[in-house]
Structure formats: structure tokens, C-alpha cells
């Protein structure tokens, strides 16, 4: 059984919570006592039917206000796959949550209300999915029951969406599906109400979509997390570098180089508690031992000699600002990337992106919460990296406010 991580975005009214409730319910990931609790709540609120949305709206404040205010993670499984949903709210003020949910997803579900068609928020969600380099997008055209299951309406929305999406360069595959989350049409089983639709149901698509090509298996990257030195009699000379492969494939005998020192050695063994491995690839957590004793510590990166990453103190990046405290002019922040942390200063704001029109807006200094734009950064020590487009793990970073210790921005190196 393998694993698919996907994100869902939608606004209060387009039925996102109902869709997720439906997937969980029909895949038997909801238990009797959860359902009973939801039935009781629905009754108290005076809802007519069992409100499947209540299954996913977790926190008190959300139930009171009827909105979803944070990223919530949901789980379900079919015999084919385990699924992790990062469920994010769709309001404009929650752009940062969508960015968070998208950062670990292989696939995004974008919901469109069939009565409204492609609207600003559809574009916003698609832009964020594209920015975070999600390669598979499923466009669920929901509430088909309210447009009499009209093929004409569906075709028009698909045309509108495809025209817009032709400007998004990272999305490899767009799959439109007409559904009714409320009635279950095309969610798990094919709909009897839309014989004109020959494609897969949503669940069938989620079970079968190929997402194996997302990890970078070309450029070998191993950020060192922790040095293992048992200093016991049995393991007297053991010195292992523990970490998670962030790209490429490592094998015993590989000629490697340690960044930033540039020292070279060969891999002796790929050690795990269950015995040595023939090879290690992303996203495995392993421990490497080398032939030579060289000085390596947390924050260093082990790479293949003939394929080094980039090293720079001046970076170009797209960022999304997360904090409700706006970014100051030439802000001094802490940058965390792979297993390194260092000081950084924002040298220049190049432009903001208006995520409704996708236009670049120049001449704005600083960032407010949920703003997205391009900056240049100067760091106190060299950043060992790849472009985000090439590698999501070595090309991403967060910015932390040294005063409050809060994570104030997420960044992708251009």
C-alpha cells in the first residue's frame, strides 16, 4: 500500500467539508460514535440533514463561527492507498494556510461551485498549488445537482478553467470531475445522473493517479541532522551521519563531498537498525558512514562529488508572509533551510503578486499577512541549496522572527 498526500481548498459555501465528510464516510473512516456525536450536534443546531461538514470542523471556535480556521489533517484508506488530506480554508485571509497545506501535498483538489464557475478564489487556489509545485490538480465541479447535471454548464467551466490554467507552468496534469458532494455523485461511485461523463470518480482517480515521479531521484542530497557516536565497546569506532535523503540515490562506494567544507570521501555503509541497505533514496531516514574520518556536523550536506548543489549568500526567492505583524524594511530574520539555521536580511522587495489577477505589482516595500512576492535575501553564511523547482526539500526555507520566535514566512528559492 502506498501513500498519497493531497490538499483541498475551497470557501465556506462550496461544499469542501461536505466532500471530505463524504469521502471519509463512504470509505468507512468515520466511526459510529463520531457519527452519533455529529448527528447530535446537527440536531442541536437545527440542521435538516446530518451535517457531514461537522465531521471535519474540529475546533470550538470553528463550530461556533461555522468556518475552518486552520489546516486540519484527515486520514482515510482504501485497500489500494492510504490518504492524508491537508484540509485548508479558502478565505483570502487564509492564504498562508493554503500554502502550508500545499507544501507537503502531491495533489490538490480545487472545488468550483457549478453555479458560479471559475471565480477569483479558484484562480487563487490554483496559483498557490502551482507556486508550491503541486503537479496534479483535480478540479471538482461541485453542486452539479443544482444545475440539473447539465453537461453544457460543466463543459463551459472546464473550458474557462483550462484557458486560465495555461498560464500555470508547474501543473502537469489537470483532471476535471463533475460531482455532487451532498448526494455522492461521482465521489466514490460513478453517477447515474450524469451518463454523459465517462471519466473516473474522484476516489478512483485518487487511488490510481501516478505520483511516483515527484521526488527528485537525480541529485543526491543528504542534509546531516545528527551525528551518531555510540562510544560503546561494541561500536567503539562507529561514527554515523543521521539524516533523511532529500534527493537522489546513495550507494556504498559512492564518491561524496561534504558541503560546505568540500572534503571528499566514499560511503562505507548505509546503516539502519534493521541492517545495512544497498541504496538509500528520498524520503528515507538512514545513517551514512564514510571511509575517512572527517569533521562533519549538523547542517552540513553530503552530496555526490560530480553533482554539487548551489552555494550562495545572496538568494532570490518567492515568499508568503504569515505573520500578522508586517515585514519591516530590511528586516533581520532567522532563516531555516534543510538542517541549517542562520541570520538573514531582506535586501529588496522586487514585486508582489496580486493572487486574484496574477499580476506583478512593483513598488511596495514590506509584506503584510498573506502577501506573496519576490525578494532578495542576504544570509550570514552560505546557503547550500537547489532551486525549489528542482528540489522541494533543498529549495525551501522558513523565516523566523528572532524576537518572538514565530515562523513569519515561507520561502521558495528561485
Amino acid at each position: 500500500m502506498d501513500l498519497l498526500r493531497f490538499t483541498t481548498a475551497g470557501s465556506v459555501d462550496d461544499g469542501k467539508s461536505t466532500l471530505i465528510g463524504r469521502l471519509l464516510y463512504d470509505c468507512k473512516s468515520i466511526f459510529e460514535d463520531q457519527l452519533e456525536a455529529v448527528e447530535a450536534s446537527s440536531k442541536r443546531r437545527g440542521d435538516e440533514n446530518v451535517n457531514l461538514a461537522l465531521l471535519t470542523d474540529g475546533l470550538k471556535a470553528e463550530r461556533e463561527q461555522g468556518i475552518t480556521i486552520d489546516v486540519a489533517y484527515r486520514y482515510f484508506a482504501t485497500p489500494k492507498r492510504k490518504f492524508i488530506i491537508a484540509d485548508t480554508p479558502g478565505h483570502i485571509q487564509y492564504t498562508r494556510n493554503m500554502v502550508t497545506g500545499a507544501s507537503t501535498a502531491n495533489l490538490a483538489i480545487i472545488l468550483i461551485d457549478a453555479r458560479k464557475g471559475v471565480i477569483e478564489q479558484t484562480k487563487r487556489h490554483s496559483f498557490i498549488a502551482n507556486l508550491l509545485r503541486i503537479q496534479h490538480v483535480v478540479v471538482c465541479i461541485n453542486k452539479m445537482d443544482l444545475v440539473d447535471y447539465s453537461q453544457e454548464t460543466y463543459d463551459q467551466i472546464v473550458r474557462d478553467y483550462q484557458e486560465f490554467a495555461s498560464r500555470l507552468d508547474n501543473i502537469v496534469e489537470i483532471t476535471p470531475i463533475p460531482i455532487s458532494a451532498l448526494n455522492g455523485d461521482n465521489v466514490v461511485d460513478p453517477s447515474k445522473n450524469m451518463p454523459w461523463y465517462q471519466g473516473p470518480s474522484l476516489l478512483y482517480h485518487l487511488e490510481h493517479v501516478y505520483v511516483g515521479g515527484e521526488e527528485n531521484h537525480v541529485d543526491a542530497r543528504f542534509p546531516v541532522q545528527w551525528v551518531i557516536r555510540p562510544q560503546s565497546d561494541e561500536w567503539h569506532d562507529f561514527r554515523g551521519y543521521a539524516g533523511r535523503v532529500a534527493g537522489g540515490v546513495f550507494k556504498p562506494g559512492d564518491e561524496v563531498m561534504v558541503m560546505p567544507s568540500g572534503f571528499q570521501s566514499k560511503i562505507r555503509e548505509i546503516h539502519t537498525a534493521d541492517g545495512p541497505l544497498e541504496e538509500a533514496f528520498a524520503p528515507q531516514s538512514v545513517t551514512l558512514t564514510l571511509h575517512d574520518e572527517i569533521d562533519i556536523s549538523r547542517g552540513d550536506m553530503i552530496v555526490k562529488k560530480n553533482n554539487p548543489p548551489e552555494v550562495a549568500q545572496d538568494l532570490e526567492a518567492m515568499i508568503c508572509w504569515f505573520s500578522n505583524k508586517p515585514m519591516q524594511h530590511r528586516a533581520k530574520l532567522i532563516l531555516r533551510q534543510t538542517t541549517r539555521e542562520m541570520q538573514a536580511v531582506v535586501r529588496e522587495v522586487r514585486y508582489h503578486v496580486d493572487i486574484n489577477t496574477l499580476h506583478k505589482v512593483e513598488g511596495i516595500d514590506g509584506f503584510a499577512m498573506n502577501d506573496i512576492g519576490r525578494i532578495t535575501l542576504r544570509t550570514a553564511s552560505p546557503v547550500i541549496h537547489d532551486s525549489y523547482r528542482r528540489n522541494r526539500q533543498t529549495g525551501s526555507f522558513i523565516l523566523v522572527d528572532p524576537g518572538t520566535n514565530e515562523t513569519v514566512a515561507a520561502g521558495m528559492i528561485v
Partner: protein
Amino acid sequence: MPSYNLSHLDQLEAEAIFILRETAAQFQNPGLLFSAGKDSIVMAWIARKAFHPAKLPFPLVHVDTGHNFPETIQYRDEFAEKLGARLVVGSVQESIDKGRVVEEKGPDASRNRLQTTTLLDTIEEQQFDAVLGGGRRDEEKARAKERFFSHRDDFGQWDPKNQRPELWNLFNGRMHPGEHFRVFPLSNFTEMDIWMYMKREGIVLPSLYYAHERDTLVRNGTILAVSEFVQPREGEEVVNRRIRFRTMGDATITGAVESDADTMDKIIEEVAAARQTERGNRADDKRSETSMEDRKKEGYF
């Protein structure tokens, strides 16, 4: 082109190892909460792998309510010894004796809530700056939004509206003095994943998890084991039933289910067909619709 796919269990294990190593690297003095429940057993098991061949760079921490089944305590001690791990025990009885907490009164009194004070006291005494817990996001709806690295303020409280966003593999463990973090390496495991993982790894659980015969009574719709701490009240009938436990908690509140599942395979079959979530049998969660959220805000684990 070879295929570089990992099974979902391998991916979950790799993620948990990564989180455990980040915890060791980013904090000065972490501790791993160990209750001898299945989730904390899996967490400690994976921790052993994360630092192999070295020993765990942090101790196991048990908050003992004093109302534990003897099987639990025995398993805890043996497990810690097998891992070569240091064991720190915080005692609720001691908190009561010192007057730090007052035992709940009334027929349904439980020490569950008192654990929070003992835990926070233990954290302070031991100066832990990170406490690893076996919590999973699928357990309860308040946990669906929990972070891997969950920040707690000076009072040990959780503020669900002001959580740090977590992106990619980047975890921000920076904090001010007096604050600490709760870290949940198994966040993305479901109950089913835990069972499948234990089966794959050949993990043996405390005997309470497997079906056995025991004197029981039914209280507020929950089957409780008759013990030193649970005695029949008027109108309650003691019946010998074949039962097993789905979670490991206080003997006073942990409900049993009637079951014939006496092997790991049979338990997995039973879990797959289960119609009740595992916490559905914990009287502490039934107190109100948001009881878990309320307790978590106070510092419950």
C-alpha cells in the same frame, strides 16, 4: 528506471525518525512520554531505530497515576531495560500527598485530569524543554490540527489559534526560557497504521491488549475491570467476561471491549471491522463535546 517507492509504513517510519532526530538536535533536554500504551511503545521502538547503534539520547518519562494495572508497570520496567533507556517516573500520588492537587470527589472521580499537574511538575523538575508524545491526529478532532512541534507557553498551555505553521520538513523549535514543546512523531499514523506497524515489526504488547478473562462490571455504558480501584457499587453486577483493552490508561476509566482477539492478527481484523473509535471507550472524553480540546489547552498530553 528503477522504482523508488516506499510503502506507507516505511514513509511513516521515516517521517517519525526524522522528527525524533530533529527533537534531539533542536532541544537541550527532551524526554519521551512512555505509558506502556501501544502508541508510546511504537514511538520508543522507532526512537531506538533513529539513534541506533547509540542509546536513546533522552529518558523515558512515565506519569504514574497510581491507578495503573500491575501488568502495565511490569511491562514499562522491562521495556526500558531492554532499550537501555533511563526511566523517569512522575507520581500523581506524590502530587496529591504534597497538596499540589486535590483528588476529585464523587462516584466518578478520576485521576486523569490530575496527571496534567504531575506532568507539568515533572517537566519543571527535570527541566525538559521538549516532551515527546505518542498522540496521533486521527484520535480525536482537536488533535487533527495539532502540530508535530507544538509550542507550549510558560504555563504549559496550548493555544490552538496561534500555532506555528509547519511546512515541508522544516520545524521551528525556538522558544523563550520557561516555555517548552510537545512533539508528536506519530502524528500521521492512524490506529490501523499502528497495528500494522506493530505486526510488521513483531512488537509484543502488554498482555492487557490481548483477549483474556477477567471480572468486570458495567458503569455508564463502559465495561470496567474490577480491581483495587474499581469496586462494584450497589446494583452493579460483577461478571466474568472475555475482554481486551484498546488503550492503556487509568484502571478507573479505561473501558474494555468484549473480544476473542488474542493474537495480533485477530486484533487487526477486529480493528478493521471496528464500529467505535478507540477513544470512544474513554469516559474522560465523553464529558463534553470539546473535552479533549479543553484539557489540551490546560497542558494535557
